[in-house]
């Protein structure tokens, strides 16, 4: 079966940052592969190694800059990639439904038997794309999967869903399915030099909306970011200043005052 892995390039904010309009200043953002998607890529690579996945295709909705992130996925085991982008996405935030629309079109082209994505994107933290996509394309799904075993003959994925408080739900999910992957599912590999070299030769197909049979109106977002602020700190924390020795001295005092540390 073919495995599609959705990967997002996410932005991490540097320690010092400025807000410009409704986003962080570009200079204060650093981009990389979403942590959760790293685990999804690894899961797909392991399915390929086990002979269950015949092909692993990474798909992203992202600007040209995202090719670097896509190359990471290729270096870690994806066979080829599709990158969807269009001027229509430049105008602002892309909501869950708009993403599902674009991904649905890719699914129609690729016809995968399994789709793996992350539980959430670290930057926007919606945690919704995979399950929305599943509903859109009529696949089964499971969210927050931290254990996975595919039985291709039975057409079933045996998964654990990680609930709150150290409880896992054991579920059998019929294929085809979308699974959103939790960190800790596996041990994501480092890209080897050989993998990185090979990734340079792999195809990243760029697709605009028209290539997917879509128009700008199809991916119009219902959700618009209207403001971004640094949250008011509610804490009345005592900030301990000074060099490490002085700070440690004051902290030791605090700890002794609590009476729990001698």
């Amino acid at each position, binding site marked *: 079966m073919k495995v599609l892995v959705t990967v997002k390039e996410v932005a991490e*904010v540097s320690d010092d940052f400025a807000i410009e309009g409704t986003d962080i200043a570009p200079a204060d953002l650093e981009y990389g592969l979403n942590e959760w998607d790293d685990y999804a890529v690894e899961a797909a690579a392991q399915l390929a190694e086990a002979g269950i996945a015949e092909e692993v295709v990474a798909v992203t909705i992202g600007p040209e800059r995202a090719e670097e992130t896509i190359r990471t996925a290729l270096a870690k085991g994806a066979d080829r990639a599709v990158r969807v982008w269009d001027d229509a996405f430049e105008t602002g935030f892309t909501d869950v439904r708009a993403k599902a629309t674009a991904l649905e079109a890719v699914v129609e082209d690729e016809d995968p038997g399994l789709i793996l994505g992350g539980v959430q994107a*670290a*930057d926007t933290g919606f945690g919704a794309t995979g399950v929305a996509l599943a509903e859109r394309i009529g696949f089964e799904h499971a969210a927050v999967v931290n254990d996975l075993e595919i039985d291709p003959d039975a057409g079933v994925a045996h998964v654990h869903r990680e609930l709150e408080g150290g409880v896992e739900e054991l*579920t059998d999910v019929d294929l085809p399915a979308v699974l959103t992957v939790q960190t800790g599912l596996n041990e994501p590999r480092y890209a080897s030099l050989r993998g990185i070299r090979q990734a340079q030769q792999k195809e990243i197909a760029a697709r605009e909306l028209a290539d997917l049979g879509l128009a700008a109106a199809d991916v119009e977002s219902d959700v618009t*970011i209207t*403001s971004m602020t640094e949250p008011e700190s*509610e804490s009345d924390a005592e900030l*301990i200043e000074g060099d490490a020795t002085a700070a440690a001295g004051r*902290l030791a005092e605090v700890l002794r005052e609590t009476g729990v540390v001698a």
Partner: protein
Amino acid sequence: MTDDALVVAEHRRGELRDVSYEAITAGRELADARGGDCHVAVVAGDVDAFAEDLNREGVDAIHAVPNGEEFDHTVYQAAVRQLAERIDAGSIVTPNSVNGLDYAPALAEDLGVPIVTDAIGVAYDDGLTVTREMYGSKVETTVDVAGDRFVVTVRGGEWAPAEGVGDAAVETSEVDLPESGARVTGFEEVGGGDVDIADADVLVSVGRGIGEEENLELVEELADALGATLSASRPIVDNGWLPKNRQVGQSGKVVTPDVYLAVGISGAVQHVAGMKGADTIIAINTDPNAPIFDIADYGIVGDLFDVVPALVDEFE
């Protein structure tokens, strides 16, 4: 009516989860802002008993759907969709829990309405405005949502739980169920073992800021010096550096020690969910904007590789 809110309660293994009552408060807020009613849906399990507990002040109607015992996303999606259509509710509110995330996005798709997750505030005035965080809680955003129907999932701990006793009418109705392609076969408790971090008076908790496994020695020394127990944030456990029973947070343990010393931990919401009840929270972090400082009582903005050894010296 479109102005009505429909709040979906959450329960697990026979118990309503607290966030259900918080979601009622959020739903009530939206219903008030729109001049509508606040409905509550409870799906599966002992719905009659749940309905009684959910009958809090501000609830206008309770819909009990007795299909199934435990959470099943197919049942939840079908039940809530059918209820939402029947009462024509415009604001659908669910907890932003692991199970919420397993059906709410599909429900929104099914209804053809937008979804905004992990809300920490909601307002309605011509349309929905949601307050939520981004970039690992470093910034707060407001988002406007087009249309008068939507699904919004609410973060736990942000709304006061609905209290008192209401006089809502309880209506029981089974729903038509599509066949489910996902079957729950059981549950497993994980994270047991020799150490129970929930018992400790003092926790030294280590996060990704520690960098490498071999650096753990540093915090182990500190824990020894303080007579404390070592706990960790999720990445440390994901990496296999410490066992699962040391993980603090939403999917790990909830701890309430006298002192919680967070070393190289950013303070992600799922981590904070497990330790915000500690008496005294101390954070050591190089990033002055790390959200952990928002809940800390004492903070050192500094490099743990300088501060921790200096602290060990103080106690030796």
